[in-house]
């Protein structure tokens, strides 16, 4: 579904954050990316929907080279959901407006359909009573669940999560992970950057370890955690587990 070839990313033409990443993410996979901070995991994720423009390499999505010239990137992004660390709900819109804005604006759904769909999604995450609240009136965990719903309203083929629980109070992490687990069970293709090792162990079909702009190890979670090979991964795991 997503094929990445020899991906490089430099910032300010000096600091090289990604130094040649190759990946093949298949439909239905749940790929979890872990690694120390500054290792390039978020940049890698943000390259997948071109929020960061790669300096070199190819990104294919659904058989289309998306970092070529003359690609309508907005059409591509409409099929890729993204969830951010800081939620980024539109603070001047109510919850339901947040969810329906893009489908209506892009004429994918009529306003009635969009609203119906949004309410159904809100019910799925148990937040239908917050439909008319503003983001400033709800908790961090609720915001992130709504951010997930907002992405789902576009019926994406893949969901990208950029440290979705890192900005949350500890007691709110669970409710967000539950939504993500449910999403994983429904068969969604997911790429998740996270520090939640429990989530990786339970949900991932494949775990990637990134350091210094490269993927140093990848394996199914069982092997990844019990039998790490790369010395830097061993060190990393010993620090966090």
């Amino acid at each position, binding site marked *: 579904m997503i094929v990445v070839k020899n991906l490089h990313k430099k910032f300010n033409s000096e600091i090289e954050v990604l130094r040649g990443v190759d990946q093949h993410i298949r439909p239905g996979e749940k790929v979890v990316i872990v690694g120390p901070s500054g290792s390039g995991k978020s940049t890698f994720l943000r390259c997948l929907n071109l929020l960061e423009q790669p300096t070199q390499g190819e990104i294919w999505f659904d058989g289309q080279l998306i970092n070529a010239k003359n690609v309508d990137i907005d059409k591509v992004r409409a099929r890729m959901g*993204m969830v951010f660390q800081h939620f980024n709900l539109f603070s001047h819109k109510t919850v339901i407006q947040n969810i329906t804005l*893009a489908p209506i604006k892009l004429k994918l759904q009529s306003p009635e359909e969009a609203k119906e769909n949004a309410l159904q999604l809100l019910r799925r995450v148990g937040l239908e009573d917050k439909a008319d609240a503003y983001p400033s009136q709800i908790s961090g965990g609720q915001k992130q669940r709504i951010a997930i719903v907002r992405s789902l309203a576009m019926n994406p083929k893949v969901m990208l999560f950029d440290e979705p629980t890192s900005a949350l109070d500890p007691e709110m992490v669970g409710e967000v992970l539950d939504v993500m687990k449910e999403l994983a069970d429904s068969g969604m293709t997911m790429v998740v950057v996270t520090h939640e090792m429990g989530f990786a162990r339970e949900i991932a079909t494949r775990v990637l370890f990134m350091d210094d702009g490269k993927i140093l190890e990848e394996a199914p979670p069982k092997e990844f955690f019990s039998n790490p090979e790369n010395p830097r991964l061993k060190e990393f795991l010993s620090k966090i587990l």
Partner: protein
Amino acid sequence: MSFIIRFINNFIDNFSDKFYQNIIAENRWQLIIKGLLITLEVTFFAVLLGIVIGFVVAIIRSTYETTVKPNLLFKIINFISKVYLTVIRGTPVIIQLLIVYFVIFASVDINKVVAAVIAFGINSGAYVAEIVRSGIMSVDKGQFEAGRSLGLNYFQTMITIVLPQALKNILPALGNEFIVLLKETSVSGYIALMDLTKAADTIRSRTYEAFFPLLTAAFIYLILVMILSAGVTRLERWLRKSDRR
């Protein structure tokens, strides 16, 4: 001390007399009303022009700043915008007004109101542009990224997500700019446009009495500014409804 008391006595004695002379006689109040309408007309259309120019220039400038590799045309447009901001903010508004009327439209018989609207609108646009640009920059980058990640294009994101939030942040500054503009139109007399100030000054030159006409004009400006401020405050409150907790 005795001077002040004499002044006050004198003033009270002559009050109705002077009022009659300066405001009622020869229908001088009509001059004031006409002047007021001209002032309002110039301010209103100059504000509109200023908003249009200001938003366009602000969007050009902030888009340019976030573009990694701008093309030549965009570079030129950005350069023109920068020159515009520098020149307009670096020269007095009276000179700009005189240049518009006596230089740019010298050979054309242009309506003075139109000339004033153009001059004040172009002037205000430069200040509005910088206010709006600061507003756009005050909106968290994540808001923009969230819009783009949902498949909205640059301008859809700008107009439906960034600008409404920017507007909320800059409303006090923008309101202040319009209050300044209203008062700045009082130099319209330089091109012999009979605005409120010029009307009051004309009465002064007829009656040789400065107090009444000038204070009347000042009072009217004050009332207008107070109405404008109250309007901005209400608008602000309305826009802040998403901040309730």
